[in-house]
């Protein structure tokens, strides 16, 4: 994995001078510069309302920035000027279709791309097995627990083998134990596969545990305050979670987050 962390890694996403102003006049993001390298696990960490989800959605192509640009240097652009992003997106809620089985939910991205059920079957089953739900292919979302639904959502994001996985506070609604399990499983999935993950969270501990790099964001308007490189080696596990190293990174990150929150609206 050392080569994944290489600073000279090729740039995948280049966010420059991005601002987002909503129709209501709220300035959600301002002056965002960020470059995402291939293979890194980058967390966007910040308090609620700092625009981290907005930034993730802009990168996904859901909505356009009011100023600045989001460039995909290594993607091909189609005739309408849209880059071929090759992304998988995981929302805060599992966002599954309640009328469809686990198989059909995971099959959806391929179906929308015009693939038939038969030619997709292997890929769909593979994705479902990767997230550990091999026995639940024919189940409906209603029959699954919150953590299992989130796994289905991740399988759906993985089924097209995207280069980039965008995750918008995916585990925020889950209990602590499920969350740790999913963190570990996510790292295992990510390890050595050359994907890039962009992960939105408001948890310092989660971001340190998972990331190669953390972008600490502040609010009003949303901006990136610090970029912290978490140099601890992978694989990370329970031992890392209890190590002095982990504590030290958490301390640095917390301090930065506190500073970011105190930042512009520090009225004593």
């Amino acid at each position, binding site marked *: 994995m050392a080569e994944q962390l290489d600073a000279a890694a090729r740039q995948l996403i280049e966010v420059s001078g991005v601002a987002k102003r909503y129709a209501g006049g709220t300035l959600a993001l301002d002056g965002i510069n960020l470059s995402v390298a291939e293979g890194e696990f980058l967390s966007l960490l910040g308090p609620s309302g700092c625009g981290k989800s907005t930034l993730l959605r802009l990168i996904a*192509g859901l909505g356009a920035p009011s100023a600045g640009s989001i460039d995909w240097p290594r993607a091909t652009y189609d005739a309408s000027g849209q880059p071929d992003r090759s992304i998988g997106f995981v929302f805060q809620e599992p966002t599954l279709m309640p009328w469809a089985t686990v198989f059909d939910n995971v099959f959806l991205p391929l179906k929308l791309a015009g693939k038939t059920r038969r030619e997709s079957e292997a890929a769909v089953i593979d994705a479902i097995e990767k997230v550990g739900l091999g026995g639940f292919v024919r189940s409906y979302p209603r029959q699954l627990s919150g953590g299992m639904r989130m796994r289905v959502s991740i399988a759906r994001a993985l089924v097209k083998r995207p280069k980039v996985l965008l995750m918008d506070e995916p585990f925020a609604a889950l209990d602590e134990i499920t969350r740790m399990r999913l963190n570990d499983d996510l790292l295992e999935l990510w390890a050595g596969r050359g994907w890039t993950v962009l992960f939105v969270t408001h948890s310092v501990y989660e971001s340190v545990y998972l990331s190669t790099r953390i972008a600490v964001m502040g609010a009003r308007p949303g901006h990136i305050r610090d970029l912290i490189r978490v140099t601890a080696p992978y694989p990370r596990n329970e031992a890392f979670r209890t190590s002095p190293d982990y504590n030290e990174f958490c301390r640095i990150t917390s301090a930065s987050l506190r500073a970011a929150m105190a930042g512009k609206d520090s009225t004593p």
Partner: protein
Amino acid sequence: MSEDSAPISPATRVAVPVALGIVVLVLWEALVWYLAVPKFVLPAPSLIFKSLAADYPSLLVSLWITLRITLMAFFIALGCGVALAVLSAQSRIVEISIFPYAVILQVTPVVAIAPLILIWVGLDHVDRALLILATIVAFFPILSNTTLGLKSVDHNLRDLFQLYGATRWQRLRYLQLPTALPYLLGGMKISGGLALIGAVVAEFVAGSGTGAGLAWRIVESANRLNIPRMFAALILLSVLGIVIFLLMAGLQNLLLRRWHESAMQRER
């Protein structure tokens, strides 16, 4: 609440109302004999069933005529309602142009427009007038429910479809229509009953033309003070209404039981 939470077996569910019905019928029979109520005021149940048995062939023909108009009206209303709802879901302009007129159709009493419709289709085609009137009555719940359903799509799922480049058709077919299905089925349940009511009311107002439906049998029996036969026709109408309702409920259960809250069995 506590005393109501005991589970009720399906057998009890049928047996209790049936027992109540039998008790009422016996009381009715006894009171009619005891008080010597004239049969042109309130016939005894036994007399009604005798009349039903005697006039069986002609009543059955009437039943078929009413049933045919009800079914045709229902399916035309279903087709037009869904088509218009889908159309208005595609474009806001279509929606705001159509909806006021749909409401006008809905709030205008069918009895009031019957004479006009009758003149338009010509007195030789009363059955067509009946069909049009019953369709108008049955149409609105389908349109309004389906429109509401098509709009109730989960926002994140809509984003997901956009991310995967879904076409307008794919979004309609795989997202909007399944979302609208429970709403549509609710509308169909109401419309099924309304189509029957529409068919009967229209026949009262417009007359029966060549064939005589159940409504006409009721009018005719009343004119001849043949009250037992009137009751017999009423019973057939009720049975028809019940059968339509049960079919709709069954369809609803069949299509939704795997995934929708309304049809899920809860285990305690």
